[in-house]
């Protein structure tokens, strides 16, 4: 379907598509097998200016919004969700600075993020704080003109690979979530190190790692936003980033549909290509219907968010749930269409199905998204 993109949006799509076709697809199976971080591809992405799309023009970016990020991520995810996740994590990691940072912080970090010379990461999750993010235990205590951070962050995307980290820590532990603040921690800061690197089911090219803060001392001006407003910023950050995760589902499902249709046209059984059988056609038709519905919802949500509405949580959560549940279903069906071949690593749909699962889990499980939607409905009808 024609979504009537602007010239700049089409340029973003074309550029991301070239990266996917030329740089990602030829190596994705190897990166997956070796659990290898796609450093060179991220450098190619940087050279192509894609890191600049979400940064405002005054800091060296292109000034794009949620829609532009979604379009780029969709194309990159068509190649590999692991690579696309690594790219997306840099946006996620810097959103707190864009939302609540001081002018000095923006001047200091955004130009490097835009050029792709430094990457960011977002440190919220802990062993005891997943869906219940208010359970975090990492603390930040002011000591003279330095903050001292202590705690361990878990499953941090781009951990050990990024240079800039947005870390959520409690500045007033007695106040719970209202006592949380966000800090910028940089690679090399004293007391900051990396722990266990996870061995994952899917998105294996992305780095998922522990961040260890042990009497980590950082200058006072690394606090992002006002003290105690960390959770508000976290929620705004996630509202902005969820459509990106949804778009990973769209790109992934498109890739799975492409593989399934091409295979069904080539595979001959009972003397005919299997696409001529209605049983197969209906699976493919359902995949295409779900995919297009998901895409339309994600684009609509992204445009809604770019209009700077009062409340974007419901739209953001709805598109995340729909697109990622859809991606799980469509990739599973793609494996079914390819049959035994689909289950083998020689064909790309096996990896696609493994990669799909995380989309239903990270950046808020799809159950938590439904909670958000339910609470919003409750408010709307009160």
């Amino acid at each position, binding site marked *: 379907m024609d979504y009537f993109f602007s010239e700049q949006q089409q*340029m973003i799509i074309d*550029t991301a598509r070239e990266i996917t076709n030329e740089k990602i697809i030829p190596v994705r199976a190897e990166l997956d097998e070796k659990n290898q971080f796609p450093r060179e591809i991220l450098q190619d992405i940087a*050279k192509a200016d894609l890191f600049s799309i979400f940064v405002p023009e005054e800091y060296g970016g292109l000034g794009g919004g949620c829609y532009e990020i979604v379009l780029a991520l969709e194309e990159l995810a068509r190649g590999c969700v692991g690579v696309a996740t690594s790219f997306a994590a840099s946006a996620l990691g810097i959103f707190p600075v864009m939302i609540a940072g001081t002018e000095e912080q923006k001047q200091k970090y955004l130009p490097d993020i835009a050029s792709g010379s430094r990457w960011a990461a977002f440190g919220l999750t802990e062993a005891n704080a997943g869906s219940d993010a208010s359970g975090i235990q990492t603390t930040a205590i002011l000591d003279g003109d330095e903050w001292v951070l202590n705690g361990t962050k878990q499953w941090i995307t781009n951990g050990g690979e990024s240079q800039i980290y947005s870390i959520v820590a409690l500045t007033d532990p007695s106040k719970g979530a209202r006592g949380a603040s966000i800090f910028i921690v940089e690679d090399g800061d004293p007391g900051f190190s990396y722990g266990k690197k996870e061995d994952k089911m899917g998105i294996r090219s992305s780095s998922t790692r522990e961040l260890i803060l042990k009497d980590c001392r950082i200058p006072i001006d690394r606090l992002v936003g006002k003290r105690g407003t960390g959770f508000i910023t976290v929620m705004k950050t996630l509202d902005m980033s969820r459509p990106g995760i949804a778009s990973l589902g769209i790109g992934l499902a498109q890739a799975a549909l492409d593989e399934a249709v091409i295979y069904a046209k080539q595979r001959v059984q009972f003397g005919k290509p299997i696409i001529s059988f209605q049983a197969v056609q209906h699976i493919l038709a359902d995949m295409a219907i779900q995919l297009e519905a998901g895409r339309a919802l994600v684009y609509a949500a992204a445009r809604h968010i770019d209009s700077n509405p009062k409340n974007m949580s419901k739209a953001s959560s709805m598109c995340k749930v729909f697109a990622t549940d859809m991606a799980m279903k469509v990739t599973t069906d793609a494996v079914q269409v390819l049959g035994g071949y689909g289950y083998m690593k020689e064909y790309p749909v096996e990896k696609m199905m493994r990669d799909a699962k995380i989309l239903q889990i990270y950046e808020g499980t799809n159950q938590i998204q439904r909670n958000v939607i339910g609470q919003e409905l409750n408010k709307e009808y009160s």
Partner: protein
Amino acid sequence: MNIFVCIKQVPDAKDVRLDPVTNTLAREGVESIMNPYDRHALEEAVAIKEQLGGKVTVITMGPPQAEAVLREAIACGADEGVLISDRAFAGADTWATSYTLAMAVKTLGAFDLILCGKQAIDGDTAQVGPGLACRLQVPFATCVQKTRKVNDVAIEVERMMDDGFDVLRLPLPALMTVVKDINEPRVASLKGKMRAKKAEIRKFSATEIGADPQCVGLAGSPTQVVRVFSPEPRGDRKIFSGSVIEQVDQLVECLKAHL
């Protein structure tokens, strides 16, 4: 460092057809692309510019629509595009093409280095690069697989050979043609594409480069193409299987049958 890169717009090799009536390349409806080897020449030029500073100018001889590859080159890091276009250039072989490009280069002025792809994927002659160097009276290296060292006075390169490579040192100005192993061309950047869209392409006609009408296009081309055709597919192929000894036995039997 003032670098010129000679590029060519060619039909996409994925989609090559011959017109069965005229026996010429069917160009209608076939997508045009930048000759793949030229992308590597351009990337090398941009990389050298990034290292030493200077300017990269891309030059192409072709019909007006060849402007598209110049803009693509600018999106990939070139600074300026020059289109050499004239009806008089039509039908040029490599002799006339190298003459025309040499006249264009002389019009543009002094240069330090000229880069070309090893060959174009449509003609596949690999003659234009060396021809251009000879007409400009500069040293050249063909099939360069690596730039070892480059500075303002000389360039040291590896020339790919069947059995390894030669290391050549060329005083500048010089010309080199490159193979695909030399680098990985970058994807055109967003800012590059925006610049390319607005860039002004300089255009030169035969008169503007001072070309002798007898030396360009069909008139200046000693090569005469008598016929181009697709060879008839041969249907009598036979593929042997089994161990080498079994295959040899089968081959011998097959040859005996034809004695």
